[in-house]
């Protein structure tokens, strides 16, 4: 299979993180706490009973399956995956679609197993599992389709009716025999009627609902205008007198449908499905029943059951350790990558990863009762109580619409009294001229353009209010580990403690001892390893949770890990080197052989390179900044805050404390932007008016945040804030224009100076102008903002 990997050509310019990542690195989002487990968990997909649900057999014996694929960011990723899977011998067809995050694969089951296809996909940096149709996604798809259908019908209808109208208009200046005039009118009516009935239906339905509830909505004037115009036109058709406005009716419906479709698309794209927490939990667990260990589905697990948790597996449910000692990575809950030691009597949580040793637990809480699920429900509620940032469009629209209806009524009354025959076209003109078409496009067009542009630059916006809220933000709050700092530690220094011991050799020995460990220190060591070096073979390798790794290399015994345990091999006294014997596991390690300690290793979590620039930009623009960290090391947190220039710093804050501090700010009137990555940030992310999750953060953070920073680039934050301000400016310009046009057109129409067709054209042009103005937001401002690189 490695030959297949090498044969895949990589595009010269990486399209995005997904393609640029080398095949060996784990999928984004899995960086913390666990590595891609060995192939065996995928082999359950080869089970015939399992396959029966998902795999289709074709008549020629080939198998076909639809997969849900996560991790594809653009067409380049899809192409790379297609190339990779097609390269496998036995695959007859593989198609990957980015828009739907799905793949169709056809293969020859006698040459290839499904698990091999899935592991190839994982090797290329994405995750795949059998597609389970999701009701919500289906709903969005159906909505989009109906919107497109209505758009097509109204668009084609409008074009045809305008063709007929050309005949009618030119005929009006010269001589047009009644027969031909009526023919054209009839044809127009025949087209306009289905357009109105099919594409116009949503407007009538909304208007009817508004009427019933005695509310003023945007659809009421629209429905009114359409009814009056259509009715008057039909009347003229049969009486042979007056004007017909079928072209205006169709154009009206088309532009309004266009506005609604853009808006709907924007909303739908924001509701991106992200692999939820349940994707992390294993489907099968090893349960001890009657003294024998059997595999049962997770759904069958109940409180009180005893299960076996092997090294590298994800904890399936909250429980208490019954026997065994091990280290568990609780990063998903705490955001801290440092493993936590567990022994009998300790509690473990669903979603955390068991690192090194098998452990037996008694299940306490399953599924929705588990801590992690409870946090999820907690912050759903926090979200509901989130004070809404007033959306500009709503405020303006309501006042405007009431005004429009009153004006139309007044005009109708006036003309009906003074000059009845002219009343109808004038009222139609008034309603058309004051149509909130451009107004309703003002917001969605601007938001769509800005959202798309930001998505291309790595900011995935999930909720509709984000851009408008960002423009109002006054305070930015950061989490520490994984947000301002890199997610994994880095080897910063190796000190040789004995003459003749070379730090590079010591590093090689340490890496060899830790080569199979999932501990963050092991990952940091492996990251430092030059690609060409080979590790010496290790005999009698032992990974001892909470202590380190021990083994024999070239006949000598070594220990690498906690300083006190490591030097115990040599029975050496405590070493005075700085910080070496302090109880802070995870930042210092010692390599010893059985005679003497050899070298001291220092690890640190580095701040992200662009953190300082990003914070500096925020400071210069007058944003209040704060750092809320769950790390109890007060000194380290304070140092980091000073280094980056952050004004306020709190260390050792629990999720509840973070929420409390955020509450204080929000009720004090601040608009808060929170940036975080772990589950312990989730309540904070829920309470802040706008929240950003790091792309490498926990799944729960992704679920709860309003937006995701795809490539963890903090520099995108200043960019997003600037863009949000520009978007607000453009929206205001759009509103000003739309209202201005309506304000000027209304008196003209009311006085009878504006024929309906002119009103419709004017309305269309003003809508187009709004869209064109919004398109400016697709490009970065000249001299793109501050901290971006």
């Amino acid at each position, binding site marked *: 299979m490695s030959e297949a990997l090498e044969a895949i050509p990589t595009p010269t310019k990486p399209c995005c993180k997904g393609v640029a990542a080398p095949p060996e690195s784990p999928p984004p989002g899995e960086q913390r706490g666990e590595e891609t487990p060995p192939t065996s968990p995928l082999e359950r997909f080869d089970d015939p009973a399992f396959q029966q649900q998902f795999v289709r057999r074709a008549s*020629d014996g080939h198998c076909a399956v639809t997969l849900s694929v996560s991790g594809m960011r653009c*067409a380049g990723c899809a192409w790379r995956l297609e190339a990779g899977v097609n390269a496998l011998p036995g695959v007859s067809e593989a198609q990957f679609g980015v*828009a739907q995050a799905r793949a169709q694969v056809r293969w020859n089951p006698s040459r290839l197993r499904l698990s091999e296809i899935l592991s190839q996909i994982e090797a290329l940096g994405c995750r795949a599992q059998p597609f389970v149709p999701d009701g919500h996604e289906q709903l969005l798809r159906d909505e989009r389709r109906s919107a497109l259908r209505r758009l097509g019908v109204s668009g084609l209808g409008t074009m045809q009716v305008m063709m007929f109208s050309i005949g009618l208009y030119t005929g009006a200046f010269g001589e047009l025999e009644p027969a031909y005039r009526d023919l054209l009118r009839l044809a127009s009516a025949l087209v306009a009627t289905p357009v109105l009935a099919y594409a116009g239906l949503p407007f009538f339905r909304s208007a009817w609902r508004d009427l019933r509830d005695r509310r003023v909505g945007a659809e009421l004037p629209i429905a009114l205008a359409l009814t009056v115009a259509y009715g008057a036109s039909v009347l003229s058709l049969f009486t042979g007198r007056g004007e017909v406005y079928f072209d205006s009716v169709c154009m009206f419906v088309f532009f309004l449908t266009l506005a609604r479709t853009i808006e709907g698309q924007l909303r739908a794209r924001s509701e991106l499905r992200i692999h939820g927490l349940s994707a992390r939990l294993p489907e099968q667990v090893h349960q001890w029943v009657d003294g024998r260990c059997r595999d049962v589905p997770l759904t069958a697990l109940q409180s009180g059951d005893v299960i076996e948790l092997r090294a590298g597996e994800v904890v399936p449910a909250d429980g208490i350790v019954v026997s065994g000692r091990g280290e568990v990575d609780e990063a998903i809950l705490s955001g801290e990558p440092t493993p936590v030691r567990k022994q009998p009597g300790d509690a473990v949580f669903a979603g955390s990863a068991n690192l090194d040793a098998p452990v037996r637990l008694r299940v306490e809480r399953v599924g929705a009762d588990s801590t992690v699920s409870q946090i999820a429900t907690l912050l759903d509620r926090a979200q509901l109580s989130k004070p809404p940032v007033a959306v500009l469009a709503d405020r303006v629209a309501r006042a405007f619409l009431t005004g429009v209806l009153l004006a139309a009524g007044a005009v109708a009354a006036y003309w009906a009294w003074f000059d009845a025959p002219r009343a109808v076209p004038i009222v139609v003109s008034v309603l058309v001229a004051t149509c909130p078409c451009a107004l309703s496009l003002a917001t969605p067009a601007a938001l769509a353009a800005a959202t798309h542009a930001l998505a291309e630059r790595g900011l995935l916006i999930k909720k509709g209010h984000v851009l408008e809220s960002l423009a109002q933000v006054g305070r930015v709050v950061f989490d520490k580990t994984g947000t301002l700092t890199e997610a994994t530690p880095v080897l910063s220094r190796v000190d040789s403690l004995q003459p003749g011991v070379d730090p590079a050799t010591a590093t090689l020995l340490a890496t060899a001892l830790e080569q199979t460990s999932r501990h963050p220190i092991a990952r940091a060591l492996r990251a430092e390893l030059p690609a060409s070096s080979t590790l010496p073979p290790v005999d009698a390798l032992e990974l001892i949770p909470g202590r380190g790794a021990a083994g024999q290399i070239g006949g000598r015994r070594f220990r690498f890990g906690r300083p006190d345990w490591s030097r115990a091999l040599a029975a050496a006294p405590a070493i005075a080197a700085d910080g070496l014997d302090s109880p802070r596991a995870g930042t210092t390690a010692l390599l010893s052989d059985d005679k003497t300690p050899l070298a001291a290793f220092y690890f640190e979590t580095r701040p992200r390179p662009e953190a300082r620039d990003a914070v500096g930009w925020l400071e210069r623009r007058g944003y209040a900044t704060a750092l809320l960290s769950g790390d109890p090391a007060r000194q380290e947190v304070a140092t980091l805050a000073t280094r980056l220039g952050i004004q306020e710093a709190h260390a050792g804050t629990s999720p509840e404390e973070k929420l409390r501090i955020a509450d204080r700010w929000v009720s004090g009137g601040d608009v808060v932007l929170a940036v975080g990555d772990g589950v312990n940030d989730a309540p904070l992310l829920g309470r802040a008016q706008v929240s950003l999750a790091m792309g490498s953060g926990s799944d729960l953070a992704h679920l709860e945040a309003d937006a995701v920073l795809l490539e963890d680039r903090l520099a995108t934050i200043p960019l997003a804030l600037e863009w949000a301000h520009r978007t607000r400016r453009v929206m205001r310009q759009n509103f000003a224009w739309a209202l201005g046009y309506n304000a000027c057109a209304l008196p003209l129409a009311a006085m009878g100076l504006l024929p309906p067709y002119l009103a419709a054209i004017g309305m269309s042009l003003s809508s187009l102008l709004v869209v064109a103005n919004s398109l400016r937001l697709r490009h970065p401002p000249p001299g793109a903002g501050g901290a971006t690189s």
Partner: protein
Amino acid sequence: MSALFFLIPISLLLLGAAIAAFLWAVDHDQFDDLEQEGERILFDDRASDERDTTRPGSPS
């Protein structure tokens, strides 16, 4: 000009056909992904003879 009595109904029929074709396209996923297919031509194709078309059970 009397030809109009003939031509206009034909144009309505053509319109109907156009709308039907559009609705068919929407219902058959043609508009689901407007970007990827366009970019597909920019990527190199693997030679199609490397694909597997052998039947399962046949000697290979």
